[in-house]
């Protein structure tokens, strides 16, 4: 069974949900500690959401220097699948594994909603179980969610198909070109602001086709990586 590491920093909130999502998808979650420079042989890593180090300095800025992160950066550069969710996405940009950055939502309010996204690249380790252009609904909850990058970087991301998720129906935070998530060139590192790990089990997710709270659109992030690992 594939082992998926889930990192806990001081101030991480969604590590338990991420571990649960891995388990529901059929993988074995492995808790990784920020101060431990050891990936314990995991096959992939999830950086979950929350407010690591209280968002001090900038969201994700201090976490980037955690001992576990230097291991993750090396392993990601060798092809290890890494998914950054919300604060985890912010950590990945601060660690320069993904380009751009997140600033405060344009309207300055914390946003918490069920968000529709399109999956615009199904060739990454974390999206291969989706269909190209598929619309999915997963929760979005953040304060610093406005994705920004210079025009050259944005053009490059679009040109190389590295815009993996785009907000649909509404742009909830002013993100450039409606970008909700991106990948690195190789497609093993993916980051997004919305939370797939909160939409993996009927009864606990957003509203879905079968009724209130039946949405499980996030589960295939985790089945995708498991399928990617077994080839």
């Amino acid at each position: 069974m594939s082992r998926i590491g889930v990192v806990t920093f001081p101030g991480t909130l969604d590590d338990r949900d991420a571990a649960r999502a891995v388990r529901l998808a059929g993988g074995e979650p492995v808790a990784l500690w920020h101060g431990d420079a050891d990936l314990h042989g995991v096959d992939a890593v999830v950086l979950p959401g929350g407010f690591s180090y209280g968002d001090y300095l900038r969201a994700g800025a201090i976490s980037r220097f955690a001992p576990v992160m230097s291991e993750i950066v090396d392993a990601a550069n060798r092809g290890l699948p890494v998914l950054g969710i919300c604060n985890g996405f912010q950590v990945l940009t601060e660690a320069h594994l993904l380009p751009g950055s997140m600033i405060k939502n344009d309207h300055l309010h914390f946003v918490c909603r069920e968000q529709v996204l399109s999956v615009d690249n199904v060739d990454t380790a974390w999206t291969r179980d989706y269909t190209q252009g598929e619309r999915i609904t997963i929760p979005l909850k953040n304060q610093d969610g406005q994705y920004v990058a210079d025009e050259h970087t944005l053009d490059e991301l679009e040109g190389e198909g590295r815009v993996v998720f785009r907000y649909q129906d509404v742009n909830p935070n002013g993100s450039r070109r409606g970008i909700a998530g991106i990948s690195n060139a190789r497609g093993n590192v993916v980051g997004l602001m919305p939370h797939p790990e909160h939409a993996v089990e009927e009864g606990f997710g957003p509203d879905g086709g079968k009724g209130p709270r039946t949405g499980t659109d996030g589960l295939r992030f985790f089945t995708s990586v498991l399928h990617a690992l077994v080839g």
Partner: protein
Amino acid sequence: MGRVVVDVMPKPEILDPQGKAVAAALSRLGFDQFANARQGKRFELEVEGEVTDEVLAAARAAGEQVLSNPVIEDVVAVYADETAVTA
């Protein structure tokens, strides 16, 4: 005791939502002289001895590598704070 100040501001081309909110609040409160506001960060780094050129260079490096994110922010000033109390 010496002190170095590092000032970090959002890049001019990056919309500064906090600055915008500050500008709106100022005009609402009658400070209508100000057409715009931007909000940045000031870091005060203290050293045991004097602020040497070496210390300033280290502060500049820290400003670029840690205290700011070059994607969204610029280090706009690094200087010795002459008002720092000498122990």
